[in-house]
């Protein structure tokens, strides 16, 4: 039972970290929106899903790439990758802004209770995933391979494949940029002010609607980047791809303390590792069950997460 885990420990660790970085990026969408709204963004998994489709549509339809065993020539490869990453981020970001506008804004303006907003968010998430299901006829969509996945180097039996390395490096960079942005930029300060005290922020002249839209946009951009790296690694997507991944990313956000951006980093990485180790012991079919049990355990034992929520509020 444990022999796979021991034999392939380092290579499992590596893929756990790569998966963890995807979780980090998606969980930022949950954690940032939660920070300003004190509400779960139920449609985040669909925002991610749209990103994966955007990547494929750009690479396959706009750039006309077909599946090949060899990498594209370098200039075209770079162009494809940049366009796909940016396109995926932009599409996800726009979907996120759309979600906020349709499902949250009107209800917030009227000051309805939380239940109503939750239900409306679930509704929009169903609408998004069902439209994609109908468009794609429930079939999985393949991402043409443009990058030959050769191993760059090997350490202790773990082979550092080029897509794994790219995912880790770019996700880490994006996370650092976001962290600095929220800390130092004017908009970042406004976001933090709203998450600390909405009323006080409003009195200080922060435009609440603008900040909330911007938060959704940033969360969407991050989920879109995650979607790009996901399609790069797994090379296919489906209308319900966001469901399990969204639940896992939400779990990651909760582990790190929802609302806490740096917490999401550690939450994502630790969940990625735990998930990979657990599937090597129990088998991949129990993967989502493991994630769910971790979520319930964290919520029951340490509801503020390991690193604590950004703002204490255990019940509202």
């Amino acid at each position, binding site marked *: 039972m444990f022999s796979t885990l021991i034999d392939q420990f380092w290579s499992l660790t590596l893929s756990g970290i790569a998966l963890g970085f995807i979780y980090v990026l998606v969980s930022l969408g949950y954690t940032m929106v939660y920070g300003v709204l004190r509400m779960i963004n139920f449609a985040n998994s669909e925002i991610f899903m749209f990103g994966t489709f955007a990547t494929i549509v750009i690479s396959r339809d706009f750039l006309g790439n077909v599946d090949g065993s060899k990498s594209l020539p370098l200039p075209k490869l770079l162009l494809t990758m940049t366009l796909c990453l940016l396109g995926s981020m932009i599409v996800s970001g726009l979907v996120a802004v759309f979600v906020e506008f349709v499902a949250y804004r009107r209800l917030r303006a009227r000051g309805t209770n939380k239940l109503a907003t939750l239900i409306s968010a*679930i509704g929009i998430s169903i609408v998004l995933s069902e439209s994609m299901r109908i468009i794609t006829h429930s079939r999985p969509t393949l991402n043409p391979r443009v990058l030959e996945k050769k191993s760059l180097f090997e350490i202790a039996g773990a082979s550092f494949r080029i897509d794994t390395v790219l995912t880790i490096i770019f996700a880490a960079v994006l996370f650092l940029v976001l962290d600095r942005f929220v800390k130092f930029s004017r908009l970042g300060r406004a976001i933090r002010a709203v998450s600390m005290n909405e009323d006080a922020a409003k009195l200080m002249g922060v435009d609440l609607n603008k900040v909330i839209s911007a938060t959704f946009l940033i969360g969407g951009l991050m989920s879109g980047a995650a979607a790009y790296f996901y399609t790069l690694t797994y090379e296919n997507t489906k209308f319900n791809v966001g469901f399990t991944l969204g639940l896992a990313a939400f779990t990651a956000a909760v582990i790190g303390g929802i609302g806490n951006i740096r917490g999401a980093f550690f939450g994502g990485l630790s969940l990625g590792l735990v998930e990979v180790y657990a599937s090597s012991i129990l088998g991949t079919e129990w993967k989502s069950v493991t994630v769910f049990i971790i979520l319930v355990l964290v919520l029951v034992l340490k509801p503020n997460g390991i690193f604590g929520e950004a703002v204490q509020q255990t*019940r509202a």
Partner: protein
Amino acid sequence: MKLLNSIRTGNLRDWGASYWDNSSPTKRKAIATSIIGFAALAPFMGFGLLDTPVSDYGAVLVYPVGMFILMALGLNIVVGKSGLLDLGYVAFFAIGAYTMAILGTRTSLNTWEIMPIGIALAMIAGLILGLPALRLRGDYLAIVTLGFGEIVRISALNTSEIGGPNGIPNIPVPPPIGPIKFSLNDQKAFFWVVLIMILLTIWMIRRLSVRRAGRAWEAIRQDEDVAELMGVHTLKYKLWSFSLGAAVGGAAGVLYASKTLFIAPEMFTLNVSILILACVVFGGMGNIWGVVLGASILAYLPERIRFISDARLLVFGLALVITMNFRPDGLLPRKKREKAIVKSAQKGI
């Protein structure tokens, strides 16, 4: 005149309530009997405008219409009465169905003997999930119940002892009650059983609403912290509401398995939970008649209008967003008196 006025203002609920309150006991009995009689005759009205081109009219009345009403009423106890968002309601439906399938194919017990076992197991599952989950605040509860619904399905999928992805075939139909026989070809008997279960559930909810439990749920829905400060044992009543909702879901599951004769994990996806939630929300959270109306419309329309049936879930998702944005109280809102309390409570704080 009053009726016209209430149609214009869109508040049929209050008109109905005041009409009922002003009626004499004999008149009330007459109204109730005629409504129940009318509903019981529904299987004979499957012609003309009401007929369903997509599937057999008699079957449509049992599933989805009857079953959706039953489950929506059960979920309404949780979502509408106590304000707890449960997105894993399908889990209890699945537990009821699997209880029926396993016991029905492996023992000599019949549907009516399995019914209480299925209900009990669903309630126990409700308690097991509720004990940790109901301590959490609303949005966490939603995502934990959502996960739970998936976990039950995945566990059924991965357990080969109960058929794994192939499910369980050859589930027996209920034994005949007197001259009434149950068969797949003629589903009138199933419809009457569902109708009786719906009436029992409505009766249970109405009785509970005016008693201690109903008042506790109302208090929890409006403000949980205040309710707790006033001495309401919130966790206990939330657990009650949760497991009563689960019991109705379990009962529906037992009957469903006994009706379709075959069940498989893919029948119990998150979609079912969302469909039922849409029925509750669209009709009017917390109001029995609203829920019945909402579930009838949302269950019946996709069968009547062909192009909706392909995009059923899309329509239900839209129903959720649009209802919440433009008519958050649903088609038939809860009583004005109850709403007035909420309003003054919101203003007071």
